């Protein structure tokens, strides 16, 4: 079965794109089915404007998911992303309030991302604590710090040039945040596919012992992976506070699992070493589209939670059935 896929894949670049994992194809099919259903249910769904809306909505989750994909390929999870995002937004808003230039605040946000990622990565790489535990801890620590910056108060952003990140348009029609998300996805995809660092990420996530014996500094790779995840969270923070026009210290509380859901939906293995960035893109799109469709149908958000959760389990279930793992017993 696998060999057949291989041969088909040799034929063209389009075939190659789908060759290694069948997961991506089945996700594309699931996505198309979802779109067809919503097209029938709502006349507003299948329009360019609506899809740009979906993209805008997806951009925050998307940028974070790109980073967490790297962490998960390494076999670790980053649950502290929303908290990192919030520290970044608070930093940006407070600096803008003091009249500092927007460009400088962007650098400061990036620094916050690097710092938070360094703490996570350091604990994982040096002390060999599993990522899920490290980030469960730092998630709360970072959140506490975010609240402390303003004693829990919201900070308004009045800088008009800063608003461009979340609300600006390129060529008059395409929201800048979609371009930003696409750029982040492309950069991560490039790193994974065309650099030695990307190869090491897959190797370390696939088998750390083998990687170590092949001369890879496994700790460094894990460390840098977590830094990437942190920086992506901070970048998502820039979009968030620009769209909202304010920095709110409670941003994203309770939504920590959404990003992880999208990545798992996209077929990235929780144990590391297996997954594709294209899967993550579709995972993010599926969740954002369901959200959008249900809003169009004016369904209560409580239903959305039920559907989101069910879609995640169904998608993973499909994969389990397809891989034949159930037959082994």
């Amino acid at each position, binding site marked *: 079965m*696998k*060999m057949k896929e*291989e*041969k088909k*894949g*040799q034929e063209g670049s389009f075939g190659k794109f789908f*060759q*290694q994992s069948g997961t991506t194809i089945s996700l594309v099919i699931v996505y198309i089915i979802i779109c067809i259903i919503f097209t029938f249910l709502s006349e507003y769904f299948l329009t360019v404007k609506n899809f740009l809306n979906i993209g805008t909505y997806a951009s925050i989750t998307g940028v974070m998911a790109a980073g967490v994909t790297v962490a998960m390929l390494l076999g670790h999870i980053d649950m502290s992303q929303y908290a990192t995002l919030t520290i970044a937004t608070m930093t940006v808003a407070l600096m803008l309030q003091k009249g500092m230039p927007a460009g400088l605040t962007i650098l400061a946000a990036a620094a916050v991302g690097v710092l938070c990622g360094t703490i996570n990565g350091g604990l994982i790489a040096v002390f060999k604590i599993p990522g899920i535990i490290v980030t469960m801890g730092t998630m709360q620590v970072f959140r506490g710090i975010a609240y402390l910056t303003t004693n829990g108060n919201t900070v308004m952003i009045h800088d008009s040039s800063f608003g461009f990140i979340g609300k600006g348009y390129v060529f008059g029609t395409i929201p800048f945040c979609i371009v930003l998300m696409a750029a982040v996805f492309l950069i991560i995809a490039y790193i994974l596919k*065309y*650099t*030695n660092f990307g*190869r*090491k990420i*897959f*190797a370390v996530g*696939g*088998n750390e*012992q*083998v*990687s*170590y*014996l*092949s*001369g*890879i*500094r496994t700790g460094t790779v894990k460390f840098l992976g977590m830094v990437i995840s942190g920086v992506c969270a901070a970048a998502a923070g820039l979009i968030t506070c620009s769209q909202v026009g304010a920095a709110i210290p409670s941003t994203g509380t309770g939504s920590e699992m959404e990003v992880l859901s999208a990545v798992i939906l996209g077929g990235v293995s929780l144990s590391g*070493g*297996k997954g594709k960035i294209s899967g993550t893109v579709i995972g993010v799109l599926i969740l954002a589209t369901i959200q959008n469709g249900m809003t169009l149908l004016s369904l209560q958000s409580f239903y959305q939670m039920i559907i989101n959760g069910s879609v995640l389990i169904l998608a993973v279930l499909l994969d389990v059935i397809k891989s034949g793992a159930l037959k082994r017993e």
Partner: protein
Amino acid sequence: MVKILEMRNISKRFPGVLALDGVSLTLHAGEILALLGENGAGKSTLMKILSGAYQADQGEIFLKEEKIISKNPAEMMKKNIAVMHQELSYLNDLSIAENIFLGKLPINKFFQVDYKKLRADTKRLLDMVGLDLDPMTEVSTMTVAQKQMMEIAKALSAEVQVLVLDEPTSALNETEVQILFGLIRRLAAQGKGIIYISHKMDEIFEISHRIQVLRDGRHIGTAHTGEITTGELVNMMVGRTIDTICAKEGRSPGDVVLEVKNLVTARIKDITFSVRAGEVVGLYGLMGSGRTELVEAIFGKKPVSGGEIRIDGKKLSIRSPRDAIREGIAYIPRERRSEGLVLTESVQHNMSIVHIDKLQKFLKLDLKREKTLVREWIQKLQIKTPSLHTPVKNLSGGNQQKAVIGKWMMDEMKVIILNEPTRGIDVGAKAEVYHLIEELCQKGMAVIMISSETPEIMGVSDRILVVHEGRITGECERAEFKQETIMHYAIGEKSL
């Protein structure tokens, strides 16, 4: 004497290897039978079939003349066959009593664990094996020897009829060994059948009534202890014909490349040797002798506590495999699936990973060059794979092994260490590995090869070093190669 256990014509095939070929074994009540053979002779496989961990492809097992079918370990335990494996299995955080009675804890009328009874029952068993500890002692606080005695006590907790002990003395000192032997003799006197596996000749002569020798998965012979000499046993163990190996004469080694001086680690006690360019040094030793530890120390995987390692006369400080690789040392590990290959990754990605940094050109991998190099070595090593992108887990054992070797070929290395490179691969693939070693030699690399098979190590090496209990106990030049000599060194007997 009453036959308590009979295994008839047992065969077992693993992918590429016939591990057991029609082996029969008879055990009488009250008898201590020693099972003897080199690593890979089939002793452990035979015992795993007896314990129910493996199923035989062919053959039958009779317990007291009654045919039994082994499906899983739990069932065989119910039939009162207890196998104590080389690798101990216990739960570190529980007490001795809980470990021994796991799954069958005594319950009182309130459905609570009856600790009084548990304590008393455990104490009785511990007294039997001569372990003077409180039954509630947590296992993690015990020494390895104590854990070993506990495992035996556990085997005794059932009304055991057949007890198998696989290398039970590897972690015991002389006094503890004597306590164990006393126990074994008592059990035999009670009419139980005991199968005793060991590499230690003196122990076998001391404890057993009868000795059975296996070799290459076949039954070679049985003899009553006392009617056979060590020399005869060694002959039975190693008397193999050399067929697949073309012994190359007349290599001309160059200068010394690798020098190891007074190397000390946790299990290595002062080892000194050197390897020349274009020379193959064979490293022989039985399981647990320290041979793997030695090469892992050279490669930077195990910490070194003393001594020095030099390459081309330069003293090295190797703290990790990365350092070793930088100095030109390559290591092909024993466990290809857990140490050699990232199974989820493709053939291409696995084979280029060691030298991936050298393929990076500024911001981009030179994918063309990578493909050319990988293709070149797939062809040279004749790795059979549908494509470069096939996950390595889909390849056969022999092809996987060649991929592990291929990982190190993309760049010039000075020293190449192969740990059991032909383990579990078929004859054809073996021949290709030997051929490759020959080529590496001609290129002027210094080669170290660990092997458990004496014909193989004699066929390939220029010189053989024998390791026993962390020391080199013997060294032979090609002219003096003799299986009996090597085996004598390996079991720690200095003189013939």
